[in-house]
């Protein structure tokens, strides 16, 4: 899931500028699970802004609401009235949610309340770690389910490097060596022969390195929908 953190209050206030009527929009999906921008967080942020700006002599009228998924246009249909009444919309969804809001309501000033960081998973309460880089060419099938692109500091495909140190990474000793983990896992699975296959240099064109990406599923397109250039 997407992991994000809330921006500082000072940064958020700078983004709000002189806007008097602020609508905080939370999201009920990823940012709820990482306690960054769900209903509770949106409510607390709205209260914090309201009280802080009043204390500072520049009161803002701050309301809040939460949609189930901020990244999909259909879920944003119901909040049109609230958006139109606001001077500034403060989205505490991920970067996708912010952009979806801004695109849906092109006349609205939409600013981000979060820093969207990575795709990861919770390790324990309050701790999330990066697990996927969305490289577009998944190698997890041959690495025992451990991603060397996301978890190896050097993104090696035929690791480990010479710096692996008792299972820790030489770049960051707080990190487990991904290739040690891969080795251990493949050994458990009795698939060590996979380590003997040399993986050629990665074609990064499928990742963000190849430019902004889009996927078109022709099988899901509805009759009557206009064909994009990619589909022709």
């Amino acid at each position, binding site marked *: 899931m997407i992991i994000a953190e809330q921006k500082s209050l000072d940064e958020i206030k700078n983004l709000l500028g002189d806007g008097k009527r602020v609508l905080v929009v939370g999201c009920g999906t990823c940012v709820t699970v990482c306690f960054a921008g769900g209903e*509770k967080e949106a409510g607390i942020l709205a209260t*914090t802004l309201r*009280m802080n700006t*009043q204390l500072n002599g520049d009161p803002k009228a701050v309301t809040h609401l939460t949609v189930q998924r901020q990244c999909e246009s259909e879920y944003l249909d119901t909040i049109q009235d609230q958006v139109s009444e606001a001077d500034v919309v403060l989205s505490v969804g991920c970067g996708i949610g912010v952009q979806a809001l801004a695109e849906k309501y092109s006349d609205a000033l939409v600013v981000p309340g979060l820093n969207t960081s990575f795709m990861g998973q919770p390790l324990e309460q309050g701790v999330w770690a990066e697990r996927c880089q969305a490289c577009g060419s998944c190698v997890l099938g041959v690495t025992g389910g451990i991603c060397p692109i996301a978890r190896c500091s050097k993104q090696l495909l035929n690791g480990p490097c010479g710096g692996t140190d008792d299972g820790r990474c030489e770049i960051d000793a707080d990190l487990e060596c991904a290739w040690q983990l891969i080795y251990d896992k493949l050994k458990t699975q009795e698939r060590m022969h996979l380590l003997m296959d040399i993986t050629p240099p990665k074609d990064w064109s499928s990742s963000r390195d190849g430019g902004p990406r889009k996927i078109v599923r022709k099988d899901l397109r509805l009759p009557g929908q206009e064909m994009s250039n990619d589909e022709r």
Partner: protein
Amino acid sequence: MEGDCHYLDGNINARRRVEYAQRLLEQIGLEGKRVKMINLSSAMGSQFASTVAEFTEEICQIGPNPLHNGDHESQTGNNGPTHNLRTVIGPQME
């Protein structure tokens, strides 16, 4: 006392929420020490009285809440100038 809660770890969770509320108050620009938690049993009446008296004195020293305009009507609901912080913290810290 702490850890001896009838609800097992209830008062430990409560302490975390109180500390969170204190941090929020500081972030807002109010004094975090306006909120306090102590552990007492129901049999500790005299300690309760002295603790409350002491806390009352601390609060008097801090001064009145500058956001309290004495109009409780305007403090309810989503659009009020202040909002009951207690109602939005809730079970957040479970």
